[in-house]
């Protein structure tokens, strides 16, 4: 049934390699020019050959416009191996007020960010680490929009790139239809698709949440498990990216 999806989506979905070529032309800032210039893999690339990078941000809140990025974790991987050696982790000055509620969640305090750099300073390294790779996040409403907003504020232009959303892959399985009345009558509960709960279903170990680097690792492992569970390494990346 999945083989129908790419065809349907192909009409609406931008062809990423082509878009990257155009964006490389249009982008003003040399960092972005170089980022797009590195290109994007073809949508037919088999999953087994895709270079992924799991990415997680901790933020001061949920609005890309109002809130800032406190930390970034990156973990490059393939279907076969996750490489801790190449992981990156930055604590950043969010440039926005750090609210008590968010501190409780991610545990990064005012004193931690006192000496922390602005995103702009680590941008060359960050974009370099993302270059040529497909980003993997759990819930795509955060990382890409936040990064784009932060870049817009600093460079005057945003950024877009394809993203695989492990939460959406869980939703495909467990949120296919809303629960019918019969299911509700029988006491069925909505299956949680939060990162930690999703991981449990694949026998993945519990990792303490809300540390950008750990969460990135957690999503990388989750994607490996999801693919092992119901995709083939030969399936094209277009099946799962957005």
């Amino acid at each position: 049934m999945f083989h129908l999806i790419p065809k349907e989506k192909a009409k609406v979905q931008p062809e990423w390699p082509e878009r990257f070529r155009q964006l490389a032309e249009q982008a003003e800032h040399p960092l972005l020019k170089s980022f797009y210039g590195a290109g994007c893999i073809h949508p037919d690339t088999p999953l087994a050959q895709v270079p992924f990078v799991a990415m997680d941000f901790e933020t001061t809140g949920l609005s890309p416009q109002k809130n800032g990025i406190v930390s970034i974790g990156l973990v490059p991987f393939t279907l076969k191996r996750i490489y801790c050696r190449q992981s990156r982790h930055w604590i950043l000055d969010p440039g926005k007020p750090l609210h008590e509620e968010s501190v409780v969640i991610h545990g990064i305090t005012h004193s931690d960010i006192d000496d922390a750099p602005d995103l702009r300073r680590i941008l060359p390294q960050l974009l370099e680490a993302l270059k040529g790779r497909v980003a993997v996040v759990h819930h795509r409403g955060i990382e890409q929009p936040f990064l784009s907003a932060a870049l817009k504020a600093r460079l005057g232009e945003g950024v877009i790139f394809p993203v695989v959303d492990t939460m959406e892959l869980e939703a495909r399985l467990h949120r296919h239809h809303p629960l019918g009345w019969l299911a509700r009558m029988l006491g069925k509960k909505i299956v949680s698709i939060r990162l930690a709960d999703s991981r449990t279903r694949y026998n993945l170990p519990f990792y303490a949440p809300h540390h950008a680097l750990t969460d990135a690792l957690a999503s990388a492992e989750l994607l490996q498990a999801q693919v092992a569970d119901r995709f083939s390494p030969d399936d094209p990346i277009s099946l799962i990216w957005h």
Partner: protein
Amino acid sequence: MEVEQVEVYEFLRRFVPFKNLPEATLAALSRQVEISYYKADTQILEVGDAVSDLCIVRSGAVEIYRRNGELYNRMSEGGLFAYQSLLMQQKVRFPVKAIEDCLIYFIPEAAFRALFDEHEEFADFFEVGDQSRLRQAVSRREDANELLTSRITALISREPVLISSAATVQQAAGLMTDEGVSSLLILQTEASDPNESEESFDRRQALVSASDGSEHKVCGIITDRDLRTRVVSQGLPFDTPVEEIMSQGLVMINSDEYVFEAMLTMLRTNVHHLPVLKKGRPVGVIALSDLVRYESRNSLFVVSSIFRQQTVEELASLYGDVQASFVRMVNEDANSRMVGSAMAVIGRSFKQRLLELGEEKFGPPPVPYCFMALGSMARDEQLIVTDQDNAMILDDSFDPKLHDEYFRELAAFVSDGLAACGYSYCTGDVMATNRQWRQPKSVWEQYFIDWIDNPTPESLLNSNIFFDLDGVWGRTEWADQLQALISRRARRSQRFLACMARNALNRTPPLGFFKTFVMEQDGQHKNSINLKRRGTAPLADLIRVHALAVGSRAQNSFDRLDDVIEAEILPPGRGPDLRDAMEFISRVRTRHQALDIEAEQEPDNNIEPENMSHFERRNLKEAFQILSDAQKFLKFRYQPNRAN
């Protein structure tokens, strides 16, 4: 900014051998970790995979199997696997499968080795004790092929079928048909006297108890082939007693020997049926065909093709096959004993075939003779790089004027033929082409008596090689008789043993003062170690001295060691250590030669330590240390003014 994965760090910290590592080391280690997810029922490691990581079960469970499919171990969170293969730099031998959905952490080889080098405790976890690790490194159980791991018992499908020597061949044929067997053991009709003196002290006797309680000796065997070739084709009457056509002088084997011993015995003695004994009682008969499934296409087939070749040129063309079977055995992790025996059987077969061809060419020998193999071939320790060491014992009726021309030509024919087949001429001229080593039996006996009774280190310097001897062709019993002479006489001559001991110390292991390797300093093998000259040869020399001292008649170093250990002349534990050292150095040597052959280079005995793995270096140093200690002990035992 380099940063460790907290979850990885915290996990490793919970388990031995990581928990005692310094914090900074563990943090650095957790940065190196790689991770992969395996769904239940998928294979994590397949047999033959290259191993490049130490594996740790992070979640889920795995099962490790033996090659035969038997479950070896089951592991869950914190379980470590693949380290044996990693330590020994071998490919995966035991496949590993996920039995639940699993997350596996991998520690790359380089990081693992760094820890192993720098943290004693970490290394200790993977090796209980140095000696036992060396033993593990050479352990037969884990990495040998079936020929080596299976005991002969496994081949026996039924009890032997017996018949009295007075029965007729027709009765015998009827019994074979009824029982569906291809061979019968023949029982002596008279009960044997339990106090009867043994006619040959080393020939194994088989006895069978009759229903009346009397004991009967197994005196022969007949096979269906014998009925065909010795009865029917000769036109003998069907009432001929079986004892007239049976084969006597039975070659037998013990049931607890390995299958490969049976194979070698059959190849050496050219019999196709071997009675199997258990505590002196026949428990079955195995046929060559039983072994073929264990040994599909290597040495056995090289040997049989040697006997099919009609010319020296054809024999020489088998060189590639010999090398291929050597490489195959090494790659199958056959132990050095097996490789050495198989190569010796091949070498022996070349000699036998060349002598057959020689006798066709020059006619039958004017007087009986025995062709002997000396040195490594006699010890069953031959490898691929070897020269020919051989000699001839001639009948005492030998008259040089009348007969020497024949034997000189025959010896030259064999020697040239061997050289053509890849066995280079002996640089010390220990060959039957040398008149000194082509002598009547009485002269040979006098040689040995002189060496043993009037020894000087100089006179014995080059005669070590004659104390490893084996009859290959002709009157091979003469070689046995020389062995018996040596074993009787040598143990009584303390001066002889002391001279042999002194010579055995001439070649020392390549260890420096600080346990560093001492390399050859000149010539084309500069900065390398000659594993034969510095390792296996001095070990064989040393073991020979001890073996002669206890009157052992064995030729193979491992067999000699068994006799030496049994005689309890070594300090406890030293014997098994020597065996492990011999095995390890031989293995490095064979592996090195196999790699050379695969790389299409001329194989040799020189290795450069810098090209070896850390583990190989470490084990090799240990093996050399054992040799060094054993030499010290030998020196002590035979010091000039010590009363023994």
